């Protein structure tokens, strides 16, 4: 049975239990979305856990996650529904000889011939789901307009069939990297959540949660370095996922401290551009202790 949270702190502790450490407003907005039945529009730089939030929510609320990954050129047929032409053709061929058009027409536009895509699937599902519409800013504006009906009324109109209304209320998350301004109409229907890179202590907590065996000294130094690197002007600043990857790498190597050698050999885990590597090495690498590990 899906969980229904009673308060903000319930959501916060629930998300924590799934291994996602929510920031200040994340738990609050998630709670509001569940209570008010409004979609959440999550924006923020790449790799701050926008998609993870949806997964964690699904886990916590014990609902299945339906995910729609957006891309340029995504259309109704891929997102909403499509008629199964081949099956329809076969049907017509088998019946063509002895039945009138009217009857066949009624037949071939039935649910049997409908291919449901993620959005329709989320709406028509009998148990409540979490619907994740990922990277909505990658689609065209026309697609946004199509979403409006779905987001405000939780229904989908299919001309041949009528309107499919949702029986259960899905929790909807839309994520965006802010690569294009979304329309006012879409924003109007959503609660807004801006996720930024976490504060130092918060990130330390996240890293420790994922790699509890990593020595405290190393973990702290790691997040400090990552924060330092994010302040540089890089093509792609390291995300939280990459901090965690780095922590795992250091754990595997059994590092007791991050000195210049360790940093140089493992920094490709967090910095992934040729030019960025040079900048980081010059600005950050030089500040580290050379050679033998020194505590601190």
């Amino acid at each position, binding site marked *: 049975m899906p969980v229904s949270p009673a308060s903000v702190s319930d959501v916060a502790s629930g998300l924590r239990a799934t291994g996602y450490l929510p920031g*200040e407003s994340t738990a*609050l907005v998630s709670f509001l979305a569940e209570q*008010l039945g409004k979609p959440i529009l999550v924006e923020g730089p790449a790799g701050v856990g926008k998609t993870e939030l949806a997964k964690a929510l699904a886990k916590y609320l014990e609902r299945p996650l339906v995910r729609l990954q957006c891309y340029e050129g995504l259309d109704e047929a891929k997102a909403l529904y499509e008629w199964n032409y081949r099956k329809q053709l076969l049907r017509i061929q088998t019946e063509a000889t002895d039945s009138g058009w009217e009857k066949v027409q009624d037949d071939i536009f039935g649910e049997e011939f409908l291919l449901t895509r993620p959005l329709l699937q989320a709406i028509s599902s009998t148990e409540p789901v979490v619907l994740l519409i990922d990277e909505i800013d990658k689609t065209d*504006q026309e697609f946004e307009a199509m979403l409006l009906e779905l987001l405000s009324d939780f229904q989908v109109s299919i001309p041949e069939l009528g309107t499919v209304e949702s029986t259960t209320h899905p929790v909807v998350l839309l994520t965006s990297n802010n*690569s294009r301004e979304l329309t006012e109409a879409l924003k109007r*229907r959503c609660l*807004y959540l801006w996720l930024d890179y976490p504060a130092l202590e918060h990130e330390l907590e996240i890293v420790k949660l994922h790699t509890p065996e990593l020595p405290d000294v190393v973990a702290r130094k790691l997040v400090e370095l990552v924060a330092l690197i994010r302040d540089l002007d890089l093509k792609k600043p390291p995300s939280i996922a990459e901090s965690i990857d780095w922590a795992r790498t250091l754990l595997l190597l059994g590092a007791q401290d991050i000195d210049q050698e360790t940093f140089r050999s493992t920094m490709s885990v967090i910095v992934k551009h040729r*030019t960025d590597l040079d900048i980081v090495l010059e600005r950050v690498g030089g500040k580290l202790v050379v050679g033998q590990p020194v505590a601190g």
Partner: protein
Amino acid sequence: MTAARPKPGKPDARRAALYGSQAAGAGPQGMAARILEFGEELRGEGVAVGTSELLDAFAVLELVSWTDKADFREGLAATLAKSPENRKTFELVFERFFFRAAELAALTEGVREQGEPGDSGLDGDPREGDPGEGGDADGEGELDMDLIRQLVAEALRDGDEARMRDLARLAIAAFGQAGDGSGVIGVDVQRIRRALGLKAEAQPELPKEDPRSEGLPREEIRKFEAMLRRELERGQIERTRALPAARPLNELDRALPSGPLQDLAAVHKVVMQLKRRLKTQGQENRGQKRRTAVDVRKTMRASLETGGVPVVLKYKPHRPRRPEIYVLCDVSTSVTSASVFFLSVMHALHDSFRKMRSFVFIERISEVTGVFEKERDFRKVSEAIAKDAGVADISGYTDYGRVWSEFAALVEDDLHPRATVIVLGDARTNGRDPKAAVFGQIAAKAGRTFWLNPEPRLYWNYGDSVISSYEQYCDAHECWTTEQLEEFVKALTRPIR
């Protein structure tokens, strides 16, 4: 934190002062009215707050307690401020609105600071606790400025916020005694800061034990300034027994950052955002242009589903327009502050176009395309331009006439109707010959020519500004806020009809 409830019967003028345009006549009481006023104030700052947003905010407030400031603020923000820029505005307006509301409540309830002259001395300021040294100091006559300087510097070094707040009051009191107050809060803050000698840079001439000799943390200085500002505002409210009119956030708060190097990060952020938008620009014009080409391959593929009959036509997508661009950027002293911004714009535009050549000029012109190809770090680029680009700078005065001739000679053969020329400069010729005719020739050869002027339109054509003689050949835009810049970029990427 409470929403203010003015007592019935208080003069409306005060409320009018608090809520600006909103408040003629006795407004309704209670939380709902305050939230509406807050929404109104946000609209005044350019945040699009619709009725549906406000309804959402009320729905949220049914679930979130208003006694928890963080939850209250986040709840309102989630429904009212729906972009990072709006969020920033929201924070500012939220602070201002509810700080004023609290002050108003204090005023109507008759709560006073200790030591406030001419008051019966009700104690217990509910927000601040013990006013400490600052409160007592009013009565003690002379204040030792040197001692205060020392104490403030120590508090800043230690990051002790409670002491900083006390000292802020003390400093204001001492400053007031010296009779230096200008009455304008922003000016006073800067004067006090100077009087206290607070600098982030090290001041080695001071004695070793003075914390200022090694420089103070920048962040703490900023905090201290905010406290000074707040205390001064509070003082003003108490003195005049009225609230200062709610004025729109200073337009310059949203103006383009310029000048000192620490603003570079801010410039860069603006530019990065612009760049991202620029990349997706082409899509918006999709609906306007009906003429498209059929993609035969895709159409054939799609026709398989319908038994080989091409029922659905597939079209080739429109590619966003990627013009060829020539940028000329003035880096002379008359536009020093703007040139920092100019350069960063050039920097950002550099890899968004098919082909781009950048030039900087003062008295003569020099090409810096190579510098941008080599360097990615903005600070280095500006250094390299200042050092190596060899901008011929004999007098330091811009000579537009000469620049046009040289530019024409440099690129004459390359210019063609699909090229775009952008000039960034204030068109102040220092009395030299503008040679508008040469500029006209350049403009005639290029497809489009734009002029970006970092001065507000109000100042155009005053003094030695000759923008009007160039304007007849090109599209001139004023460009001193981020919005204007964005407008320009839109104009730039719009397809030619």
